[in-house]
């Protein structure tokens, strides 16, 4: 009994010594990244806010694109949608929060509604007055939606491409997306190509009317409607305001 206590003390000392050292490791080096897509939605963004890396007061415009047509709803901590718009939909959300989307009315997948989640990790710095001209795109292609409808979980980390290592092809809409094994750190893999901006998770989970936890609909960050028209026709109707 006494020996186990001493052993426990030794293990505590080990953790006490190693954890601060792990926290001081540089996050920019490849192969190790404190962020991970396997953590619960919102954990990575919350860690960045607590670390003071990002400013949660910044409203980052985002753009949600469906394969052809459809309806996009935005939730922010409540079961009632904040915005509803036709694809492509554009909103502004707070950096450092995660939100829930609802996509439905897609002609490719009738009678299918999905609830993807988006987690905003970083922001852009466009010239003043042109913030909404450069939203962070969330492209939900047909393959991802089909896989999610079949019960799979598709996780995408959207990164800002490093111009010096850019290629001629569009890395966001390529035919064969860059896929890594599900056990790998997706954020670290994205950091090799640029700056991770957001995490998109598309799954088949749907909230029930009585058992959906409040965190399912997001962490409650601020939202704002888009004041400009995206490339396609977009009708934004603000149903609720926070």
């Amino acid at each position, binding site marked *: 009994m*006494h*020996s186990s206590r*001493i*052993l426990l*003390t*030794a293990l505590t*000392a*080990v953790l*006490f*010594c*190693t954890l*601060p*050292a792990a*926290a*001081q490791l540089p996050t920019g080096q490849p192969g190790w990244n404190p962020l991970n*897509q396997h953590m619960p939605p919102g954990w990575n963004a919350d860690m960045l806010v607590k670390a003071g890396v990002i400013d949660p007061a910044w409203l980052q415009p985002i753009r949600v694109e469906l394969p052809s047509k459809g309806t996009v709803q935005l939730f922010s901590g409540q079961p009632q949608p904040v915005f509803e718009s036709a694809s492509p939909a554009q909103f502004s959300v707070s950096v450092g929060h995660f939100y829930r989307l609802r996509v439905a009315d897609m002609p490719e997948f009738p009678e299918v509604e999905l609830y993807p989640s988006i987690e905003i990790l970083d922001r*852009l*710095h*466009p*010239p003043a007055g*042109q913030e909404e*001209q*450069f939203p*962070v*795109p969330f*492209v939900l292609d047909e393959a*991802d939606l089909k896989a999610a409808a079949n*019960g*799979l*979980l*598709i*996780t*995408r*980390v*959207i*990164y*800002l*491409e*490093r*111009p*010096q290592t*850019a*290629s*001629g092809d*569009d*890395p*966001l809409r390529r035919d064969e997306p*860059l*896929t*890594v094994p*599900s056990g790998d750190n*997706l954020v670290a*893999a*994205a950091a090799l*190509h640029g*700056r991770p*901006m957001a995490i*998109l998770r598309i*799954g088949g*989970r749907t909230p029930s009317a009585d058992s959906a936890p409040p965190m399912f609909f997001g962490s409650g960050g601020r939202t704002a409607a888009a004041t400009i028209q995206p490339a396609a026709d977009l009708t934004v109707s603000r149903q609720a305001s926070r």
Partner: protein
Amino acid sequence: MPLSHLQHLRPLVLSVVGLCLTVTSGCGLNSFVHSEPDHVYSTACPQTLDAEERSRPTPVEARYPGQAAVDHAVRGAVDAAGMLVRVSGGGDGFGDGEKLNHSGPAAGVVRLSDVRDADGTRPRSVDAAPAAFPRRSRHYTPGEPRLPQAVDGRPQQRMETTAPSPLADMYPDEYLFDGGDRSQAAGLHSELQSGIETEDTLAGWVDSSGNRRTRASNRVAIYAPRFGSVRAVSGLVAETQINKAAGVRDAAAVNSLRTGLAPQQNISDVALQRLETKRRADGMVNLEPAAESVGTRRLMQTQKTDKGQQSRNTTASATFRLRQAAILAQHRSNAIAWTQRDFPIVTASTDSLSEVSAVFKNQQTIGLEDQNVEGTLHIVKLADRDTAVQGDVLRFTIRVENTGDRPLQDVRIVDNLTPRLEYVSGSVVFDDEHPGTLEESLNGEGSSMLTFRLNEPLAGHSAGTITFQVRVR
């Protein structure tokens, strides 16, 4: 718990803790061991010693024995004796690790002889009289900047950048750059070029002296962020995987593996050739006797036999014999014929008087001094817009100007486009006074390298303009 068991566990615990202290560099326990600062350069204002007026630090003058008075403004820095000195005018606001004995030689005179630093070493005796010097406001020396700074305090770039926002240098991954000389110094030679990377825009010319020169343009920044994504697919369905049914016994087949390395025998016979050297100049004849070397090498005989799970390695006795006998290597000195003949040398020298006669004639040189300034080329690159999205077409304008007097020959401009820019074929336009040609080639990174050549030399104080279009990918 017997005491003997505790004594057995104590080395284990101590070794584990010691291993942690050794391996983890950022360990909190060993932070005091490494007291060196983490950041050498810091522009942050150091912490003030006090927040109130009464405890504001007062500058003192320290006098070292045999040394002139040294102004010791208290800045919380390491002094000349390698000691942390912080003296508070109020007398109560000393920092951590500072010990000051107020029992000085006289009232109002602080004797620093008892000042000790953290490790307890005692410095040299110092007398300080804070009341004899006027109070001085706090003054902090800013840290050394990491990059050369411009007047406004921002990092100064090597290349002049034309950007729609001052944040282009802080967040370059959101911008699309074209122009300038990115990292490696580029050069345009006669027909070759070196150090040209994507985004580079260079002008090369030959001046009137025949020297070939190269100059980079400014850098144009266009706000055009592009995004990508990395995907992972995982299953949410419950999956049952049966690796082995209960009661199943794995039977690994007993394979009879036998690996036999056949003994080999290598015989190497090296027979030296007969060497003979003769030098007739000095009459020396050197004759080396022939040598013969015979070597016989026989490899080891190895046999390995694997049977089932048992492995047995049998090494047979090896035979290695090396025989190197120089049978005819006997040095026969009596066979060497050595002959040398010395001839007498006769040297004669004759000295005679000489007479030098010189005639000086007046000469007049008439010439024309060329006061024209050597020509040089300035290249400026501009874009017709500051922001762009994928699919937009940009128009670049390159303006070259000869600011000298003499004309410039073989003027050419090279623009190595970044992969995100695609040249719009046939969009190049030279101005009427300076026609030229365009050579388009692939740059190996998914885009084009454009080479513009002016057909005629660029006269002094004249400028030419080239425009072309690119499409943003």
